[in-house]
């Protein structure tokens, strides 16, 4: 029994010993983990400090070297000797004693003056108090007291002034005795400072505590501790290019305009700002955290949170380019997206399509648009042959009752007209917008259909009417009305229908076939089901576009775009939609269950998630998928505080209750007709292919505008046009310029004025600014001929010819200046030389920092460059 007891107590002792050891180890481990394991930022901060120390030390040593090399050290030693000498000279009996005595005297006076000032402040305070009571109560005793206090103030003030006066002569004597001692002292201090500052930086760096650092942004509910590891993010010089020690890229743009103390980090970058224990957690790459950190090209999606207008926004170039895709494919046609309201339809109006195209073509197009031309924007709906025919029947039934094809093989074209049409085709520069056989056109911005096979698609009558007045068939089309005569149009039609034909075109219905009513009904149902009316206007589809909420109110017929029911999901907050609301369907297990993966997959294969989905396939390239996904990811419920928001111009106008800019009078008619804003931007309206014309009246000479409009010729050597139009590759002729609209040959509708007159008048009345002076400053001390000669010298000295040509000499980056004296107004040149970016933000020309005189000289020289008219 005793033995048993002994055994059991021994057992207990072992047991106890064992768990003590375990406890000890665990405690040690807990302490270690708490100190280091859970605080990786400590390690980063230490390493950063040591790196920064090395960097600063290096800078200090370099500064020291430089100090010696530049003679700073020698000068310092000299000065010290001088100071010693001067001071020891002072120590001589008479002067030295007097110097010290005077200094003491001055000190005493200064003390008195300080006391005086303090007294003055107290009495003034009392005065103000009394004044307050007096104005409140209007009691005369306060007034009396005020007068007494005022007297006191005056006397104290006088005493102070007297004290200052007394100090003056003493100061002067001291300065006389001291001689150059103060100057030497100041210089020594300055020389010391050069190195001291660097030394201080090192000391400050070494002293900096290791601690959690954070940006606390209350109104967005963020506590971003990212800077605990990314410790040097705000520094101007990074000690290492390794993460997390780097500085923020392009600090001047991103941090310069978004102080991290006010914006934090995760508002733009996402991720998990409060997490500090592991890199994965902080960057949000963990389960149940929806907001993974944005990286690479995705980061700029954040700009969309606050900026209403990202076009030309510095730092948002990538996302700005990506948003073009939303417009190109017309996502807003089926989905509600804020900021994309009221943009015209992406597809043409289809009410009269039966009078335009061949039936067989329409069916094939519905089956697969890209089969007709590879750059087609219309997506594939995966219709069966029956479905495609039903839809075509419905569309054709709006303007007729038959399936009908033109027998293109037997269409007769006059060879003479064809020849003339060919010349017109190239003179009018049709290829600028329309591609044919891989030449010309640009589908990234100005989208005009490829015309390589158009001769087999449309009939000649329609083509004639179309070219004669595009607005008549499709109001709001981008196709301009060229000022051709009927004979010229006939020539173009014959050329197009003989040149651009599709050898494989089907024409099953050369003998027309009656359309069945059942098929029309089926087609109409399909059009409603798939929402064709989102992109195409068509008669009879207005009814289905009424939003349910409005239907409940008894509204049955609407035309206003804004009230239309969109067929697709609203996308205004797709970028912050909770993942559990996204339907991954049968792909739940095969793709990562996060928002970005969902968006990308939806874009790649819209109907892949499950049966019954209706979104068509746009057959985007993987690059386009990524670009578009970046934009969609930026449509968020960001709940940004008002202080973050940068509304677009439109929104600002709306808030201010101002109508956005609208063209007025006859000029509006010219714009609607010639579609200048397809390429030019005027007062914020239009595209940026061609020069912005908002200030054209202050920039261009009238005679030049007239000549150019009548006969547009090249001004700029295509630096801007070429890459944007995508013409630098392929066989496109090297010279591209404005299409020839044959302006000036016809009057503007309902008026007696020529379109050129209207344009010139509008330019001069409306498109002007007082920023550009009518006259440039004059230089009076030099004769004009001499000024011109000096301007020429400047032109040569600054190397202007590396970018501009005079005659054939010089580079071709900027415009040829041989005729600039006939083209531009002197005030514009003068202002342009001051800051060219003001007129064109992405201009290649750098700012030279010319003085006003230099600008006048250059302007006077440039204005003499003229080519006389033949």
């Amino acid at each position, binding site marked *: 029994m005793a033995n048993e007891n002994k055994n059991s107590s021994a057992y207990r002792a072992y047991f106890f010993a064992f768990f003590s*050891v*375990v406890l000890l*180890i*665990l405690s040690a*481990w807990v302490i270690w983990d708490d100190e280091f394991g859970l605080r990786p930022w400590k390690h980063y901060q230490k390493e950063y400090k040591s790196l920064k120390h090395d960097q600063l030390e290096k800078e200090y040593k370099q500064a020291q070297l430089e100090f010696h090399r530049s003679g700073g050290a020698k000068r310092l030693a000299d000065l010290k000797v001088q100071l010693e000498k001067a001071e020891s000279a002072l120590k001589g009996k008479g002067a030295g004693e007097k110097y010290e005595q005077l200094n003491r005297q001055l000190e005493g006076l200064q003390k008195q003056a300080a006391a005086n000032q303090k007294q003055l402040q107290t009495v003034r305070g009392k005065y103000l108090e009394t004044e307050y009571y007096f104005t409140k109560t209007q009691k005369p005793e306060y007034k009396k007291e005020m007068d007494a206090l005022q007297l006191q103030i005056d006397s104290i003030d006088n005493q102070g002034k007297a004290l200052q006066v007394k100090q003056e002569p003493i100061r002067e004597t001291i300065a006389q005795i001291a001689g150059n001692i103060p100057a030497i002292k100041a210089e020594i201090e300055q020389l010391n400072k050069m190195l001291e500052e660097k030394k201080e930086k090192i000391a400050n760096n070494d002293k900096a505590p290791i601690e959690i650092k954070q940006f606390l942004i209350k109104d967005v509910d963020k506590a971003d501790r990212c800077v605990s590891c990314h410790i040097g993010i705000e520094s101007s010089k990074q000690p290492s290019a390794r993460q997390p020690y780097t500085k923020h*890229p*392009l*600090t*001047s*743009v991103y941090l310069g305009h978004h102080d991290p103390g006010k914006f934090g980090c995760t508002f733009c970058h996402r991720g998990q700002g409060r997490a500090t224990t592991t890199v994965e957690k902080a960057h949000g790459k963990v389960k149940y955290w929806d907001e993974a950190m944005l*990286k*690479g*090209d995705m980061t700029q999606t954040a700009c969309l949170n606050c900026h209403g207008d990202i076009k030309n926004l510095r730092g948002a*170039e990538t996302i700005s380019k990506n948003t073009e895709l939303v417009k190109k494919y017309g996502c807003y046609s089926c989905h509600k997206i804020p900021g994309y309201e009221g943009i015209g339809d992406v597809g043409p109006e289809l009410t009269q399509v039966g009078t335009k195209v061949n039936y067989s073509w329409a069916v094939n197009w519905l089956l697969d648009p890209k089969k007709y031309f590879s750059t087609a924007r219309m997506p594939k709906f995966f219709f069966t042959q029956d479905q495609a025919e039903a839809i075509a029947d419905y569309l054709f039934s709006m303007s007729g009752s038959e399936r009908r094809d033109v027998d293109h093989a037997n269409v007769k074209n006059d060879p003479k007209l064809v020849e003339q049409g060919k010349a017109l085709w190239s003179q009018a520069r049709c290829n600028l917008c329309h591609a044919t056989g891989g030449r010309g056109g640009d589908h990234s911005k100005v989208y005009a259909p490829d015309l390589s096979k158009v001769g087999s698609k449309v009939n000649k009558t329609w083509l004639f009417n179309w070219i004669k007045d595009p607005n008549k068939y499709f109001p709001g089309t981008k196709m301009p009305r060229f000022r051709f005569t009927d004979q010229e149009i006939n020539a173009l039609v014959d050329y197009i229908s003989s040149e651009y034909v599709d050898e494989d075109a089907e024409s099953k219905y050369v003998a027309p076939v009656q359309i069945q009513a059942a098929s029309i009904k089926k087609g109409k149902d399909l059009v409603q089901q798939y929402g064709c009316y989102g992109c195409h206007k068509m008669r009879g589809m207005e009814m289905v576009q009424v939003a349910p909420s409005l239907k409940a109110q008894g509204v049955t017929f609407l035309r206003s775009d804004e009230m239309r029911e969109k067929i697709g999901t609203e996308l205004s907050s797709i970028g912050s939609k909770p993942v559990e609301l996204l339907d991954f369907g049968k792909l739940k297990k095969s793709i990562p269950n996060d928002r970005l993966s969902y968006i990308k997959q939806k874009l790649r294969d819209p109907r892949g998630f499950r049966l019954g989905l209706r979104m068509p396939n746009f057959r985007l390239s993987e690059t386009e998928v990524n670009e578009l996904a970046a934009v969609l990811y930026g449509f968020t419920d960001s709940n940004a505080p008002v202080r973050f928001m940068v509304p677009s111009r439109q929104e600002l106008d709306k808030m201010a209750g101002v109508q956005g800019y609208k063209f007025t009078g006859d000029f509006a008619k010219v714009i609607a007709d010639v579609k200048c804003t397809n390429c030019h931007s005027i007062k914020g309206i239009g595209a940026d292919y061609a020069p912005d014309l908002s200030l054209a009246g202050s920039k261009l000479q009238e005679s030049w505008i007239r000549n150019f409009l009548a006969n547009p010729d090249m001004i700029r*050597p295509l*630096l801007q046009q070429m890459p944007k139009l995508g013409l630098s590759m392929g066989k496109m002729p090297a010279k591209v310029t404005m299409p020839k609209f044959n302006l000036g040959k016809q009057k503007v509708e309902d008026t007696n004025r020529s379109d050129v007159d209207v344009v010139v008048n509008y330019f001069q009345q409306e498109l002007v600014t007082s920023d550009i002076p009518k006259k440039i400053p004059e230089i009076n001390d030099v004769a004009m001929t001499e000024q011109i000669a000096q301007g020429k010298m400047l032109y040569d*000295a*600054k*190397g202007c*010819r*590396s*970018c501009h*040509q005079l005659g*054939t*000499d*010089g*580079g*071709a*980056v900027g415009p040829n200046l041989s005729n600039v004296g006939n083209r531009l107004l002197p005030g514009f040149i003068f202002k342009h030389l001051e800051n060219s*970016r003001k007129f064109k933000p*992405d201009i*290649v*020309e*750098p*700012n*030279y*920092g010319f003085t006003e005189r230099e600008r006048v000289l250059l302007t006077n020289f440039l204005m003499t460059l003229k080519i006389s008219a033949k």
Partner: protein
Amino acid sequence: MKTKVTISKFALLAAIPALMLAGCGKQPAKGKADAKSAGADSLAAAAEANTNLPFDIKEGKRLFSHYCGVCHGESGDGSGQYYGSSLQPTPANFTDKAFMKTMTDEALTRSITGGSASVGKSNMCPPWGKTFESDEIECLVAYIRNFSK
């Protein structure tokens, strides 16, 4: 025999905290999970590295092709198509390794900021210091270095 015992003791010691951890709801065997995903991660990282160049380089590329490529060529070899054929000297060739070795980052920065004339060369390359911020020039220098790597 003795070593065997110590080993098993250690195993036990190691097992207890692990069990306790499991009890606490922390994820056990973290190492295992990491090892599993490491392969996939490194593949993804490699793919990312190709498409995601450092921001400085990408920004430098964007600036270079718009402002510099016109003369120095998109590929940095000095063959920009907008530089006049009659002009001398021709733009610098940044793919020339020997030349680039003679240019420090500071020298490149100086030359971009003040123009070629400021470093004692011709006046054909204009000064960009009043057009770009200093960190934009840093991006340009980083990208220009890339040509000779």
